[in-house]
């Protein structure tokens, strides 16, 4: 499929697509700009419900970067399960200042980043360059 500018969107010759779910809008704004500085495409949502709607709608992403505790019917772990189910090739990074990584099932995420998140670009570039899940 061609995108708006007529470029191919086939995997391999396109920018990384990131679904960013974070309800703290100042954090979301900062993280989104950090990711766009890498040349990646970012879709910003504020709740897991919004993110799940995107995934259920068929949008292809390469990376989910999600907070865990967010308002709405579902949380970041539900969003991660939806991505694992629909897009098994996508990498999943969960962030939280409240939840510990060991409280989550290992298969639910490739990387856990406690808040405040530090050196996000390096961590994500390493993750996206790797084929082996990093925990």
């Amino acid at each position, binding site marked *: *499929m061609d*995108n*708006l*500018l007529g*470029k191919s*969107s086939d995997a391999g010759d396109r*920018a990384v*697509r990131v679904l960013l779910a974070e309800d703290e*809008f100042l954090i*979301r*704004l900062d993280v*989104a*700009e950090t990711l*766009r500085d890498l040349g990646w*495409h*970012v*879709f*910003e*949502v*504020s*709740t897991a*419900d*919004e993110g799940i*709607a*995107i995934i*259920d*709608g*068929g*949008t*292809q992403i390469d990376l989910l970067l999600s907070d865990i505790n967010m308002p709405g019917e579902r949380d970041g772990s539900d969003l991660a399960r939806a991505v694992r189910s629909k897009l098994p090739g996508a990498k999943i990074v969960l962030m939280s200042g409240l939840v510990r990584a060991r409280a989550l099932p290992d298969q639910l995420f490739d990387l856990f980043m406690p808040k405040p998140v530090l050196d996000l670009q390096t961590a994500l570039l390493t993750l996206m360059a790797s084929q082996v899940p990093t925990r």
Partner: protein
Amino acid sequence: MSEAITHVLLVSGDGLERTTLGEYLRGCGFHVIEAIDGDEAAIALETKSIDIVVTDVQLRHHGSGHSISAFAKKQDPSIEVILVSNVEQAVKTAVDLCEEGPAEVLPYHPEKLMRRIQELRGR
């Protein structure tokens, strides 16, 4: 139920403007996906759940509100598009291209925009 929720794709190169309007629309009960330019909007429009596109006419990066509008209508003619702009000439252009729908001029009133979305959704 999720079937009744209106999904809005909000496109603006101005992060604070986008975030502010996005939070307002979420407070009105809409689901909002935020994108910064035409490339991100095009990918987001791959999803089948977008009902309304609210986009700046002029974007800082790839594409314009007009090209996003045309792409959205090509993807799904039932998608409603609201163009916003703080450049009067751009709004006139948008109005001339009436198939792309009505335009709101910045600084627009968020409540007015919310009502416009509800009207487009037949509520």
